[in-house]
């Protein structure tokens, strides 16, 4: 018995370690876990406009037709969209040796600024490309969200609290209230339930906050975790009441170096943004306008293709 143990222990331990490591990797990257299904937005938006609250329904604009705006007044070009309620103008900039795509958005009601989960399911390893989630939710314009599925932190979407566990007391979250205003809070100072009680419709947990009251809120060497300079970036911001901006910067390619957080904050400040917040970047960074990916997302290095993400922020 003792000899057998001596002989087989290394083999047994090796197999055990390999099998467990394989399971950990699969659990982290592959095995999907569904925690909660979100009601079908598209059906709901047709039938229950104006519904809100934390029962699973989305807050929608209190008035207007079921389409984003009046169908009669819709005007669409390659880089713009406008109807009675939504106006979007997309402009491409070339700054810091990087292609930056800016969507200037004016809404008549905060309810047109929405978020959506991949497959409309709140869970882990449930991902779809930004363009696919956008299409499923009939989004006019969409950017990737905070990739909540791979992180801890508060998750409130469309007035529903999905996760109230804090990732870090210093974690900065973006709160979008029912009136469309933005606030950047730290998880250590307020609970997710309190934010919901205050009227939070969306809480995005990535960060950091880039601009607060028009002032740059990051240091030149501030970075997301261990990420260094020059990466693709996604950010969302607000100029003033119901006037928003979504920014996506390319990176990691010969054409675009990418931006540091400070450069992104500087750029958004130059646009006149008052409050700006950094979302998931890197290979996740994508902007979709009318079903077309307009930037050059990089997945696994320089390969130009969209990465699947957990969620999006969109107009629709």
């Amino acid at each position, binding site marked *: 018995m003792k000899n057998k143990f*001596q002989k087989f*222990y*290394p083999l047994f*331990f090796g197999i055990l*370690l390999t099998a*467990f*490591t394989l*399971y*950990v*990797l699969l*659990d*982290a990257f592959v095995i999907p876990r569904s925690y909660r299904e979100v009601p079908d937005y598209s059906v709901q938006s047709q039938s229950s406009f104006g519904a809100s609250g934390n029962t699973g329904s989305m807050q929608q604009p209190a008035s207007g037709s079921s389409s984003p705006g009046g169908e009669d007044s819709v005007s669409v070009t390659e880089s713009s969209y406008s109807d009675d309620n939504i106006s979007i103008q997309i402009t491409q900039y070339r700054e810091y040796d990087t292609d930056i795509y800016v969507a200037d958005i004016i809404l008549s009601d905060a309810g047109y600024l929405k978020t959506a989960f991949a497959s409309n399911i709140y869970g882990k390893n449930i991902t779809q490309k930004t363009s696919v989630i956008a299409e499923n939710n009939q989004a006019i314009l969409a950017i990737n969200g905070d*990739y909540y599925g*791979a*992180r*801890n932190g508060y998750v409130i979407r469309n007035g529903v609290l999905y996760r109230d566990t804090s*990732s870090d007391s210093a974690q900065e979250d973006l709160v979008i209230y029912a009136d469309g205003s933005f606030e950047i809070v730290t998880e250590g100072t307020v609970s997710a339930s309190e934010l919901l009680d205050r009227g939070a419709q969306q809480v995005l947990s990535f960060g950091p906050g880039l601009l607060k009251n028009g002032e740059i809120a990051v240091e030149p060497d501030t970075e*997301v*975790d*261990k*990420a*260094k*300079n*020059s*990466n693709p970036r996604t950010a969302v911001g607000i100029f003033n009441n119901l006037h928003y901006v979504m920014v996506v910067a390319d990176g*990691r390619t010969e054409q675009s170096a990418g931006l540091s957080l400070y450069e992104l904050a500087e750029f958004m400040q130059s646009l006149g943004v008052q409050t700006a917040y950094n979302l*998931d970047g*890197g290979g996740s960074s994508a902007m979709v306008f009318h079903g077309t990916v307009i930037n050059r997302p990089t997945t696994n*290095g320089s390969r130009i293709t969209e990465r699947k993400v957990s969620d999006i922020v969109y107009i629709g």
Partner: protein
Amino acid sequence: MFISAKKRICHTACIYLGLTAFCGLFSLVYEHFSHQVYSSYMVYLFLFPLLGGVLPFFLLPLIPSARFPSLPARYAYHSGLAALTVGSCLSGIFEIYGIIVPLVKLYWIVGLCLTLLGVVFYLAQVKRR
């Protein structure tokens, strides 16, 4: 210490030296493709086999009262170091990717326990002598 025991210890140290080189190379290649996203767990991965393997097994023959560790001591110690090294590697991968995986804690707990167990077994062996 017998010459054969010294040889066995040196042989073990050489294996750890190879593992140190492999870990160093692995982290170098991984960091090269990580778009300037760095993790200390990955950068210092080579320290586990170096400080836990090469160093003690090269120093052991220099101690006059030292003995070649018993099989349980070696098995526990090597297993612990293996768990710590793999745990550090995974922690680095997850940190670079930007995700939190609670299961990784198990590697650190099991690794530390087994490594300490190996040391305790060895000290008991020395004391018995």
